[in-house]
């Protein structure tokens, strides 16, 4: 009798794979790539760390994380929902455009069943992900641990980050 075909979920070979994602952007659209990849990595059993720096700090700051915005300004890749025409940059800074664009983006994301940033981070932490804040960004914003999500493991310096990510694959967003 031949061996049955059973999926290999690689449990024995604890691959030791580690992924570190640096989230440096605070616009709503750019919050997602890091989250999606972190979630996917965790779902594959990869130890995953997210490091929030610069504008990405807004993703974990309690006062800002529910309020991320998106604007077509400087983003020539934004297209109208109908006709696939690019949003003209001259229109982008007009009053109201940011709100419209943010609302549209949120709806598109929600329609896919993808959660908002704070809920998504809840899921990532639930799946074992580690969240870290950047020391310099904290200092710049004059924030302390109390201003961040409770599940952020710490505010660390660049050298701490380099230590933690020894052997890890790095992704800068």
């Amino acid at each position, binding site marked *: 009798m031949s061996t049955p075909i059973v999926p290999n979920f690689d449990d024995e070979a604890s691959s030791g794979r580690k992924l570190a994602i640096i989230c440096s952007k605070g616009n709503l659209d750019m919050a997602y790539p890091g989250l999606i990849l972190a979630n996917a990595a965790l779902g594959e059993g990869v130890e995953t760390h997210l490091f929030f720096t610069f504008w990405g700090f807004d993703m974990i700051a309690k006062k800002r994380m529910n309020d991320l915005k998106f604007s077509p300004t400087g983003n020539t890749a934004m297209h109208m929902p109908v006709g696939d025409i690019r949003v003209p940059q001259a229109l982008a800074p007009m009053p109201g455009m940011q709100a419209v664009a943010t609302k549209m983006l949120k709806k598109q994301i929600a329609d896919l069943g993808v959660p908002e940033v704070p809920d998504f981070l809840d899921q990532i932490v*639930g799946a074992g992900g580690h969240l870290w804040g950047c020391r310099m960004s904290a200092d710049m914003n004059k924030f302390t641990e109390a201003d961040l999500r409770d599940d952020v493991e710490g505010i660390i310096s660049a050298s701490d980050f380099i230590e933690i990510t020894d052997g890890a694959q790095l992704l800068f967003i």
Partner: protein
Amino acid sequence: MPVTTIAGHEVHVDAEGFLTDPAEWNHDLAAELAAAIGIELTAEHWKVLEFLRKDFATQGETATTRRVQTVGGFATKDQFALFPKKPAKKMAYIAGLPKPRGCV
């Protein structure tokens, strides 16, 4: 489509080993599939598996981790505790369903 035998049950599987015909699944087979990947099913496991089967029947596709949490009511942490390291794939396999396709 390869056919393989798991503890006496003959089932159709894809190249990876996931069952291709949800109708070939039953409770006994589930226990064997779990054993094949090193998991012993408890009542908690069964609740998740039953949700997955029911949801597949109405949705036509396997629930993702997020859906198992928001619709099924099983916290992400618990899913990882029951089906370590690769919960989405493992629970789909044991439930005799295809791997979930969604990203979240």
